[in-house]
């Protein structure tokens, strides 16, 4: 019987394991291998020639290749950090608004918030590029009503990246709100009852019950938000092309430009490896931080 199941397991797993092996794991290993090669994306893999750490030296060198990569790495870091810092607190606040039972409308609010997550990023980019339009765009018009002067949004190097963060937060926050609600439903009501009997006010209950018990959820949310944020591509490819003056040149856009459009496969792969390593370090640090908090 057990032997028969082992054969069945093989059959059941074969399609998924083969597909993921060939189209995800193999290219991932190839990316690592190519990062040590001089290779043009136009040529077969067999044309690659080993250059050791040459590609890594180049992408961190003071040349224009190095400058562009370091700018993209920095821009992606800023973009990711800002996205996480905005999305996480908002998701908790919105989650509490949906979850409260004092007034009706929570579920409707959840629907509205989550609906933006269904919108293709390309449409988000098109719509927001018009919302941000300096003269007739509705955002500057609304700011004008509040007595605030027109903002340059996407057209200034100082505000372009932040403007893209805003549209990302708008699109994604509903998804993370649903995650936060899932976390809130896991907190036993008895804890709040006991705290109320002990005379704890709403703020104290949030500080000492809600937040600590949401930590696992928030850790999961942070990891997902980081992975999502490094994938930003459409608004940059469509609206800013990395500009003005490189201020929105982010890694996914830059790696594709170098590795596909300029066909510098070795260089692009080295950049992709650096992205992968940065993610591993970043996520490991988050988990280490959460585990230390847990053991306190």
């Amino acid at each position, binding site marked *: 019987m057990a032997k028969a199941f082992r054969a069945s397991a093989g059959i059941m797993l074969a399609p998924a394991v083969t597909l993921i092996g060939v189209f995800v794991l193999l290219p991932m290993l190839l990316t690592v291998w190519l990062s040590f090669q001089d290779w043009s994306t136009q040529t077969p893999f067999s044309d690659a020639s080993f250059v050791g750490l040459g590609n890594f030296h180049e992408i961190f060198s003071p040349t224009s290749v190095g400058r562009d990569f370091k700018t993209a790495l920095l821009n992606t870091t800023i973009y990711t950090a800002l996205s996480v810092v905005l999305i996480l607190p908002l998701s908790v606040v919105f989650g509490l608004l949906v979850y409260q039972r*004092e007034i009706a409308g929570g579920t409707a609010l959840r629907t509205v918030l989550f609906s933006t997550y269904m919108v293709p990023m390309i449409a988000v980019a098109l719509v927001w590029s018009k919302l941000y339009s300096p003269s*007739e765009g509705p955002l500057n018009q609304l700011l004008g009503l509040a007595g605030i002067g027109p903002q340059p949004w996407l057209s200034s190097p100082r505000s372009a990246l932040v403007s893209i963060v805003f549209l990302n937060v708008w699109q994604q926050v509903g998804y993370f709100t649903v995650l936060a609600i899932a976390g809130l439903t896991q907190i036993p009501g008895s804890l709040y009852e006991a705290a109320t009997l002990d005379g704890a006010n709403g703020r104290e209950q949030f500080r000492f019950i809600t937040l600590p018990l949401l930590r696992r959820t928030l850790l999961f949310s942070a990891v997902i938000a980081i992975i999502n944020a490094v994938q930003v591509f459409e608004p940059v490819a469509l609206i800013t092309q990395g500009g003005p003056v490189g201020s929105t040149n982010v890694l996914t856009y830059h790696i594709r430009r170098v590795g596909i459009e300029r066909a510098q496969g070795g260089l692009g792969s080295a950049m992709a490896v650096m992205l992968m390593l940065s993610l591993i370090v970043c996520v490991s640090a988050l988990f280490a931080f959460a585990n230390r908090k847990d053991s306190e």
Partner: protein
Amino acid sequence: MSAPTRSLTRKRPSGRKALLATAMLLVAVASAFPLAWMVLSSLKTPAETMQVPPVWIPHTPTLEAYGKVAGVINVGRSMWNSLVIATITTAGILVTSMMAGYAFAKYSFPGRSLLFSLLIATMFLPPIVTLIPLYRMVGSIGLSASLAGIIVPNLANAFGIFLMRQFIAGVPDELIDAARMDGASELLILFKIVAPSVAPAIAALALFAFVYHWNSYLWPLTVLQGNADAYPIVISLSRLLSYNRGAVNTGLVMAGATLAVLPPLILFVFLQRFFVDSIVGSTIKG
């Protein structure tokens, strides 16, 4: 459900409720505003889109802008391509995820947890990391610039396997053993006995996969190499980019965006319960 919020339901001044209602309304308006503005602008005349201060509601709604979109991109062809890509990819993901999820949930075999961890790890891999070699691989097997090139690499994914394993693990072993006694094959058991008992999770996965692959942009753009006949709607939309300068074409661009947004949004409105349940299920369980 209401117990955890008991602290908030102690006797309170009604000012608190008004504050709460205002906050909820503000969040809802801010969230809905961009899409509402998109649809409204797609119905405006070019003269209206250029007015300062802006016209919020079009005086004489017109579908003129949609007609212009049809003059720039092949809307029917693009929508059809998107439908083909999203439907076939989703069907593939459902089959491969159910089979693998069943194996991980109900069989024990050597290396099970190692293999599972390895597959799940790919869930956290941003697609850009594999893009360059994958582009070359798909080209060298003759699939570039075609719908097949978009579809084939995406027929299985870790999220689907994870979700299916979570839910199939909850199906009672007795149900499966009884069917085995009757001599049913494992594939028959999976699709006739197990699948119906996890139908909501399958629906959720189908919707997630469909919307994700309808919206997907980076891979189709890379693999199609400018073959406009195979463009899904989201790629065709970038052709409207050249019309993006100047307010006179705002209606045109917004009409195009509305066309791309509608199918996933309509699916969501009717089936959002499955989306939400599966997100909650995938984070709490296991």
